[in-house]
């Protein structure tokens, strides 16, 4: 047991001594070695391309054709047409746009705010940690969707609102993770050394501790993007997001789902499947980033 662990330890020490580039290469190597990462990235890439160039190859998502409404999937309309005769394939492809803009921005907002808050909570502890901790607890007692509804009511429904609301909702979640990571770093020698050198609290938090807790923050970010998509879809299904006629997965499902049992299943099922592929793709990406970070 102890014999076999010696070379492993020394190689890890060697890697650390040679600096960050080596670790980064190791991280990337273990990342591309995972099939889940490749599949996840391919799915995400597909939707990014669709969001940017979708209307070039899928057609116009707004064009109505009242002579061919509620038509099933065919060669002319792969995913059929909706109640206004609009091509569902174009709407599903171009519908990825909002989600792909809102989800990363909202998650970024939540990650930045949550990281700052978590650093302060974990480093300062004491009264600040107690007070903010209570407020965070209060937020976490509410389901995401309910906080989202409250936020949309307070700010009105728009894409910017969705970004702000999801950012606010994610802040306490990310703050909790960062706080826990900071607490783990706090008693390590490099923090004590920085304190003894007389560095300011701000310098220790952002220049010393932050680089060392980046790994959990990165994992948290990739996982949260998936939940951001989840929340956007849910809120726009409930009618709190983008308004028609813009193609939007959640809103399209909301308009068309009552027609499923009358037989017009294609008008909402393809939107649902599109969402499913995107969240599974992001999830595969996130879990492989997590295990690659664990490995390196």
């Amino acid at each position, binding site marked *: 047991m102890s014999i076999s662990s010696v070379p492993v330890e020394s190689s890890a020490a060697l890697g650390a001594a040679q600096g960050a580039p080596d670790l980064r290469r190791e991280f990337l190597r273990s990342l591309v070695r995972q099939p889940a990462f490749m599949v996840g990235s391919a799915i995400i890439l597909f939707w990014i391309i669709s969001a940017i160039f979708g209307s070039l190859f899928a057609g116009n998502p707004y064009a109505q054709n009242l002579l061919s409404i509620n038509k099933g999937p065919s060669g002319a309309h792969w995913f059929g047409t909706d109640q206004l005769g609009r091509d569902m394939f174009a709407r599903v492809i171009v519908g990825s746009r909002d989600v792909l803009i809102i989800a990363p921005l909202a998650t970024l907002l939540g990650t930045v705010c949550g990281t700052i808050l978590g650093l302060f909570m974990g480093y300062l502890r004491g009264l600040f940690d107690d007070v903010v901790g209570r407020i965070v607890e*209060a937020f976490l007692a509410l*389901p995401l969707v309910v906080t989202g509804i409250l936020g949309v009511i307070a700010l009105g429904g728009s894409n910017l609102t969705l970004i702000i609301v999801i950012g606010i909702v994610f802040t306490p979640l990310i703050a909790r993770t960062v706080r826990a990571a900071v607490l783990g770093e706090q008693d390590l020698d490099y923090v004590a050394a920085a304190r003894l050198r007389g560095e300011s609290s701000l310098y220790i938090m952002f220049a010393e501790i932050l680089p060392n807790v980046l790994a959990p923050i990165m994992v948290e970010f990739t996982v949260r993007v998936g939940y951001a998509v989840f929340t956007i879809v849910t809120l726009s299904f409930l009618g709190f997001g983008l308004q028609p006629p813009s193609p939007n997965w959640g809103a399209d*499902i909301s308009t068309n789902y009552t027609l*499923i049992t009358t037989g017009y299943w294609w008008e909402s099922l393809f939107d649902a499947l599109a969402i499913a592929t995107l*969240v599974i793709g992001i999830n595969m990406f996130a879990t492989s980033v997590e295990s690659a970070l664990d490995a390196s």
Partner: protein
Amino acid sequence: MLGFLAKRIALAIVTLFILSLIVFFAAQVLPGDPAREVLGPLAAKSAVQALDKQLGTNRPVIDQYGTWLGHIVTGNFGTSTQYQSAIGPILGKALVNSLKLAALAFVIVVPLGILGGVVAALRYGTRVDRVISVFGLSATVIPEVVSGIILIAVFGLWLNILPVQATGGSGFGGTIYHLILPAIPLVLILFGYIQQMARAGTIEALNSDYARTATLKGLPRRTVIWRHILRNSLLPTITVIASQTGYLIGGLVLVEELFRWNGIGSLLYNAATKKDFPMLEAGVLVIGAAYMIVTLLADVLYSLLNPRIRVAAVE
């Protein structure tokens, strides 16, 4: 134990108080003039002022909050602006309905999730483990809208074997029959969380010294698993089940809307879209309180089952 309980209850009350502040200010202060919101842009100014007076929204904010909190604490939730009747009974009825749906989801998912986790852990690293774990993780991230739509298309249209409207069932069996389809999206999401937790707990217990001792002293594998491993591996599972209650209520908003079920979720949603602020505030607060109570119960249960925590709490 009593000290531990008292401390937890005190903390829960503080958290609820903060929650009430958040809810009140989000719903009452930020949207501007509630009476204008209710009556619309075309209403006469005198009518808006009259409603403002009736709602009490013309008074200072702190004053309003004090009155509101005082009423809530004494069990008076106020009057719904959309139904023009007391909120308490409406809320109570919706809670009971939601509880039925949630109970059915839990009855299905808890045994399934634990079974999935334990089986995956006992087959750790094999294909069985990978299939169960990947399925669990994927199911967790798929929104209820998506699984709901797929379920409606498959079971409501193509196979045509389950009702897609939650309401309409009469009697115990009929209600359950109508609630099966709405419960599945919730089950799918919860399954992943419970399964992951049960799996991690079981793997930890399998690698523990006491499991090795039990095996080495010659106990049959079945006894080791039932008597020594499961008991310890299920502890964290209880916590995760409780912590998912918060999610569950959020999931209810969607599922109840999708399958037309009059529970707390659709009540909140209607209150939000109809700008029924008193109802919205009461509903959100009740949800927060429910979450807090369930978490507290889980902590108590956890410490009762786990002597190590109990001892630590006393010290």
